[in-house]
């Protein structure tokens, strides 16, 4: 299971979340074509994957995703997908947890699963010399998980301990409260990691039920990059995934109501620095304006020191170490959210500055220079996403999840280049509603109290 980065609010890890990964899927410098040859492989058994062969290093990276992430958690069983992701190497087939993990270590493989809102993500890396044994273990983990009672209890205790720490982490508390305010009873309003109560209520049968419903061939996307050819990939696909059920059984997820405020919730916590999250409804990945909105977000708060919020809040005023924004285009609802952390006395001031900038952007739109910077960064930096096998595999997976087409890598930069100042100004008006923000603040925000807006 992946650890949380110690620098979650650091600029250059924008959004460990789902959408960030989705958004990174964008293109190459206009002048430069990204030189990755993507093959569409279909196995003899009919399982599909995208492959980039790269024999420079004796490694193979596989990324996979099953549709139906945490949004498939039943009511009262929040955290089920997350629990499953933590059980992935806790024993399968003839191997108990310890035997399984000793085998993983002996094979020097890497395997981790992560539950996000809409998809269960899997990440496997192996030395090419060990690929047969490694992918046998992956097959066992997916098709024959044991969910032995002692392993289940161990992982449960770890999740509960984690939740206990999260309760005291202001950024996590602000984020969970924001989701609740934005999505209420919709699955997106519920915590991916669950609650003390829901995690306590999950049984081995629940875990089995989830993998039985979600781990299926028709909702599966796969990318493979590295020291392997198409024929070998075809065989591997059938061996690893062939025994999965043909069809997933997913509970329908309704489209969420677009989240809007004005709402401001203050959660008191005795910390010297208040942490705030702000935002409202975003824009769908399929929307024709998505690319322009993505560029707009870069200009607002997605572009580190090139972004307005960073300039106004940090560079000019020294109000925060980090301030940034993100677009998260989930399948059934999208959000635009940002985060800032400022000492209690001044967090109200930070939020005023942020709201002022958002208002100004909605009214006036970005400048021509900002648009140019966004274009040159986003087109130029696209190639940076393709500098390792693991990164390429990640890009290919998200292009499949978002259904953007196998030629997207070559089309993407032109989409960025095509956005005009008029487009982005129109989209700024459409996207940003500075008077309708949902804001959560965790800490002891002195100045912010007076501005409370009834929710």
């Amino acid at each position, binding site marked *: 299971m992946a650890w949380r980065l*110690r620098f979650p609010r650091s600029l250059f890890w924008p959004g460990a979340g789902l959408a960030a990964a989705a958004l990174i899927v964008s293109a190459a410098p206009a002048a430069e074509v990204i030189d990755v040859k993507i093959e569409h492989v279909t196995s003899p058994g009919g399982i599909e994957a995208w492959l980039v062969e790269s024999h420079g290093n004796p490694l193979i990276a596989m990324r996979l995703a099953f549709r139906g992430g945490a949004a498939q958690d039943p009511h009262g069983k929040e955290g089920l997908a997350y629990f499953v992701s933590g059980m992935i190497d806790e024993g399968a087939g003839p191997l108990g947890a310890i035997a399984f993990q000793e085998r993983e270590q002996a094979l020097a493989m890497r395997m981790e699963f992560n539950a996000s809102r809409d998809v269960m993500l899997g990440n496997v890396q192996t030395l090419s010399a060990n690929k047969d044994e490694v992918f046998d273990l992956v097959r066992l983990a997916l098709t024959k998980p044991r969910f032995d009672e002692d392993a289940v209890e161990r992982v449960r205790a770890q999740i509960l301990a984690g939740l206990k720490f999260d309760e005291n982490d202001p950024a996590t508390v602000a984020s969970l409260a924001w989701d609740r305010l934005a999505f209420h009873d919709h699955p997106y309003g519920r915590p991916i990691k669950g609650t003390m109560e829901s995690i306590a209520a999950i049984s081995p049968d629940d875990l089995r039920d989830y993998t039985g419903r979600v781990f299926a061939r028709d909702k599966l996307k796969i990318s493979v990059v590295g020291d392997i050819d198409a024929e070998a990939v075809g065989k591997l696909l059938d061996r690893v995934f062939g025994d999965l059920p043909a069809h997933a059984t997913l509970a329908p997820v309704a489209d969420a109501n677009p989240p809007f405020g004005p709402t401001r919730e203050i959660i008191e916590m005795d910390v*010297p620095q208040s942490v705030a999250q702000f935002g409202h409804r975003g824009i769908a990945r399929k929307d024709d304006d998505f690319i322009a909105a993505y560029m707009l977000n870069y200009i607002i708060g997605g572009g580190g020191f090139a972004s307005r919020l960073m300039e106004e809040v940090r560079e000019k005023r020294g109000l925060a170490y980090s301030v940034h924004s993100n677009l998260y285009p989930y399948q059934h609802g999208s959000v635009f959210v940002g985060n800032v952390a400022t000492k209690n006395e001044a967090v109200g001031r930070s939020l005023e500055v942020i709201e002022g900038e958002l208002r100004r952007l909605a009214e006036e739109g970005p400048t021509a220079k900002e648009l140019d910077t966004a274009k040159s960064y986003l087109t130029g930096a696209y190639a940076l996403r393709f500098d390792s096998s693991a990164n390429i595999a990640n890009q290919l997976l998200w292009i499949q999840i978002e259904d953007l087409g196998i030629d997207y890598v070559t089309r993407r930069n032109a989409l960025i280049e095509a956005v005009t100042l008029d487009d982005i100004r129109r989209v700024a008006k459409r996207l940003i509603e500075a008077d309708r923000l949902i804001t959560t603040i965790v800490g002891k925000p002195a100045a912010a109290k007076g501005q409370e807006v009834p929710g």
Partner: protein
Amino acid sequence: MWILDQLVYALDPRAGLVLASFGLASLAVAVAAEGPQPPPRVSEFKLKNGLHLLVIPDHRAPVVTQMVWYKIGAADEPPGSSGIAHFLEHLMFKGTDLVPNGDFSKTVARNGGEDNAFTNHDVTAYFQRVAKDRLPKVMAMEADRMANLRLSEKDVTTERKVILEERRTRVDNDPGSILQEQMMAALYANHPYGIPIIGWEHEIRTLDREDALSFYRHFYAPNNAILVIAGDVEPKEVKKLAEDTFGKLAPKDNINGRTRPGEPAHSAPIKVTLEDRRAGRTTVQRFYLAASYASAEPGEAEAIDLLMRVAAAGSISKIYKQLVIGDKKAANAGGWYSDSGLDSGRLGFYAIAAKNVSAEELEKAIDGVIEDLRQNGVTQEELDRARASYIAEFVYTSDSQSRMARHYGWRLATGMTVTDVEAWPDRLRRVTVDDVRAAAQKYLVDKNSVTGYLLPVPKQTSLDGGKRVNTTVKGRS
């Protein structure tokens, strides 16, 4: 711009306290694993002005990583000026005559690149990732700010506020970090590794423009730096570019960095207890002073490295099997080896208490694991398995040019040579179970340890409660 403290944890439901350290050998580099593979062709040059240049070609993508490593860090700060190395690192983005007005990062962005920097006790590094045709541009910019930094009073005043916010985010808002800071201060009674990289708050408040410029003038020079270029380049062209940019800068005399006060022999173990309503779960940590790769006898650090992998890395480690799977006293447990310090290394163990287990019980359980390591070391099978997975990490690292640049840069800036780095897997292969047990006996020594308790005070409730933090730090024994 951030801090790379080698003791950086994240609290995660399953992972518990996890070390995310770039100083760890776990981010090591690729050269010979089991079986044949092409080792990277690393080229090394020394420019006339003393700049050390390393080129690591990787032609898979038309992308380049540039890193400049200054052989200077927080442990080289003048007394009373803690945090100045990191403060200067922030200020390095404020401008020169050529790239004024804090435009450094914006200029990199306009060139389709990403940039950042970090500071630790021994090194300060700046880096960019760009398309290969932009390398001349970013190299010229990086060389320019090595010699021509311009700072206004306003830049300094505003950035000091930013750094105080950074300290609140990193330390003051997080009881785990507060405890860690106190444990480090206890572990190093005299050596500056005991002073936090970001600085003590009361000293940060006094840092000014002249402090920053004086540190800059003294330590930033081509003969105190290593330039690492990894990616789609040829060594010859890079050497020419470097000569045309960095090569024009004058070297400096009398760079007396790295003359730090030594650590005296310790005579008693220390315990640090932090009670905090925000603590979540009872957690116990144990740090030991140890040798680093730079300070160890030949072969010794490799043995410590493998010892800690068997003892404490992941869910088949000895501590996890004993405390989490076996006697179920901990929800999670593990450990780490901080191996890259120039003067000293550290070993660490941690455990997060299972429900209704006290810190004292948990500490006793950790003691049991450590006593077993001292008595029995590790088995051949355990050693071989840990070694196979460790050596494979060198291969995984070779998949990423920026990790390669980071690995070589870090190791060269803290005492290794290119040959040392490339022979690393071979040195690991030579480690025996006897070496590992000897390392355990030499370094798992009580009087060289600090034990930290993080205790949630009673009646601590959840999310919405108006809670009171009552922080007490009790140094003891």
